[in-house]
C-alpha cells in the first residue's frame, strides 16, 4: 500500500512540476499568441542554473557555489528570464511558424551546448553533487518526497493565482488585444514588441521555475533532460487541456503525464518483447497522435478559454476559430 502511495506522490510531484511549466507556456501561447517551440531550453536553463548555483563543488565544470536553496531557485528563474530576454530580442519580431522554428533552434543549440561544453555543466555526464534542501532533516525517503510534493503543490497554486490575476488585469487584456490584432493595438498607442517581450520573459521565468524544481527533485540534470521530447510533451499538455485556460493547462499536465506513464507501464507489461524494445518510440507516436487528434477534433482543448460575453456575468466557452 505504501508503495502505491509513494508512487502516487512521485507521480503527482512530477505532474505538478510539469503543470507549472504548462502554465508558463500558456501565458506565452494561450494568452499572448507566442509560438515558443523551444520550451525545454528555458526549462533547462532553470534546472541547470539552480543546480550549478545551489550544488557542492564539482571538478571540471562550473558550480559549487552552495547558495542558499531559495536563492539558487531564484537564480534558475533569473537565468531562464535572461535567456528569454536575449532570445526574445532576436526572435520576437518573427510570427507564429517562424518564431516556432527559431525558438526550436535555440532549444537544440542549448542541448548541444550542455552536451559539449563540459567546462560549463559537465557535458553528457550532467550536473551532480546537488544536495536536496532539508535532506539531513527529512532523509531520502517517503517523508521527504511528501514534503517536497506539498511545496511543489503550493508553488503550483501560487503560480496559478498569480496568472489568474494577471489574465483579468488590464495587462492581461492587453495581451489578448495584441494576440487578436497587433495593428489595432499599435494604433491605440500600445507597443506590441515590448508587451510580447514582457510576456515571453514572464512565461520563461515560470518555465525556469519548473525546471529548477525538476532539477531539485532528481538532484541531477543532464542533456537527456532537455531533449525536444519535453517540448512536445508540454505542448501536448496545453493543447489537450485548453490553451488560454490556466485550469485547462493544469488538467492537461496531469492527464498527459498520466497517459504517458500509463502507456509506458502498459507497453512494458503487455506488449510483445519486440515492441517493448521500442517503448519510447511508441510513446512518442502516441503523443504526436494525441496532438494531431486534438487539433483535428477539439482544437480548443478539454477546458477551453472562458471569455466574458455580457455584463450579466454570463460566460461563453471559446469555440473553434472564434476569439
Amino acid at each position: 500500500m505504501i508503495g502505491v502511495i509513494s508512487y502516487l506522490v512521485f507521480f503527482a510531484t512530477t505532474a505538478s512540476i510539469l503543470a507549472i511549466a504548462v502554465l508558463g507556456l500558456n501565458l506565452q501561447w494561450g494568452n499572448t499568441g507566442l509560438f515558443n517551440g523551444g520550451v525545454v531550453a528555458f526549462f533547462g536553463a532553470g534546472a541547470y542554473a539552480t543546480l550549478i548555483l545551489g550544488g557542492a563543488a564539482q571538478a571540471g565544470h562550473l558550480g559549487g557555489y552552495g547558495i542558499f536553496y531559495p536563492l539558487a531557485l531564484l537564480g534558475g528563474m533569473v537565468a531562464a528570464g535572461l535567456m528569454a530576454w536575449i532570445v526574445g530580442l532576436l526572435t520576437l519580431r518573427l510570427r507564429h511558424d517562424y518564431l516556432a522554428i527559431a525558438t526550436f533552434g535555440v532549444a537544440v543549440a542549448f542541448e548541444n551546448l550542455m552536451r559539449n561544453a563540459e567546462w560549463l555543466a559537465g557535458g553528457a555526464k550532467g550536473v551532480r553533487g546537488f544536495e536536496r534542501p532539508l535532506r539531513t532533516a527529512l532523509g531520502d525517503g517517503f517523508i521527504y518526497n511528501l514534503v517536497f510534493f506539498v511545496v511543489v503543490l503550493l508553488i503550483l497554486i501560487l503560480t496559478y493565482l498569480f496568472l489568474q490575476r494577471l489574465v483579468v488585469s488590464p495587462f492581461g487584456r492587453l495581451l489578448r488585444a495584441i494576440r487578436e490584432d497587433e495593428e489595432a493595438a499599435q494604433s491605440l498607442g500600445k507597443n506590441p514588441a515590448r508587451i510580447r517581450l514582457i510576456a515571453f520573459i514572464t512565461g520563461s521565468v515560470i518555465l525556469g521555475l519548473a525546471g529548477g524544481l525538476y532539477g531539485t527533485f532528481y538532484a541531477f540534470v543532464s542533456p537527456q533532460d532537455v531533449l525536444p521530447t519535453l517540448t512536445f510533451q508540454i505542448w501536448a499538455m496545453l493543447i489537450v487541456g485548453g490553451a488560454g485556460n490556466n485550469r485547462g493547462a493544469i488538467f492537461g499536465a496531469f492527464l498527459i503525464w498520466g497517459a504517458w506513464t500509463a502507456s509506458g507501464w502498459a507497453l512494458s507489461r503487455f506488449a510483445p518483447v519486440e515492441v517493448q524494445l521500442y517503448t519510447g518510440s511508441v510513446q512518442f507516436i502516441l503523443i504526436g497522435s494525441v496532438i494531431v487528434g486534438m487539433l483535428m477534433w477539439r482544437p480548443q482543448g478539454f477546458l477551453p478559454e472562458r471569455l466574458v460575453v455580457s455584463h450579466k456575468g454570463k460566460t461563453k466557452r471559446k469555440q473553434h476559430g472564434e476569439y
Partner: protein
Amino acid sequence: MVEPILQAKAVTAGYVPDLPILRDVSLTVRPAEITLIIGPNGAGKSTLIKAISGLLPVSSGQIRFDGSDITGIRTDQLSAQGIAYVPQTDNIFRSLTIRQNLDLALRRAGGQVPTRLAQLFEQFPALAAKQGDKAGTLSGGQRQFLAIAMALATAPKLILMDEPSAGLSPKATQEVLEHARTLTTQGVSILLVEQNVNQALRLADHCFILAEGRNQLDGPAESLRGNKVVGEIYLGNRRVGFA
C-alpha cells in the same frame, strides 16, 4: 493661410524594399477638416495611410504633423503625439467587452477615465447600452463606431480612417460618415480613405485623387463632385504625371 496639421511631401513607400507602391505622393490636411483620398483599386490609398501612420517604411520624402517631422516614427509613438489610426477591418478586439475595448484605449487618461468614458458613451449611446457585451457580437456599423470611439479615447488631433464603410450597408455608411463630420466640429481633423466616392465627397472639405501610386488631381471636394475628370481617372482613361 491656415497652417496644415499634416503635410506629406513627395512620399515614396511600399511593402517591399525597392518596390514602391507610392511614388512622390504629396498631400496636406488642414485643421478641423475632412480630407478625402479617393482612387481606383490599387491606387495606393491604404498604403499612403499606412505610411503616414508608421506601419510602412517611407523610403523617401517627408511627413510633418503639427510642426514636427514624423517620418519613420512608430505607430504607437504617433498615438502619443495625437494621431489615431482606424484600420479598415479588425479594428476592435472581439474577445473583449466594449467597455474593456474603451478602457484599453483610455489607459493614458489616468484619473480622467470615468469622465472620458461617460463622454464617449454620451457620444455613442448604442455602445453604452451594450458596454458589457463582447465586441465581437456587434454589427458592422456598431463595430466601426466602437473603433472610432477607441480612436477618440486617445484624444487625437488627427484621425486616419481607412475605408470605414468597408462591408457596411449604405445606411450604416451614411451614419458613420456623418459622425466623422461631427468630429470636425470638435476640432478633430480627419484623413479619410473611402470607396463610396459620392457620399464621401458630399461630406469632405478637400479631396486628393490617387491612381497607380501617384497624385492625379486635388481640390475642394465640392468642385470635384460630378467632375468628368474624376470619372475618367476611375475608369483608367486619364492619368496625370505619366509620359
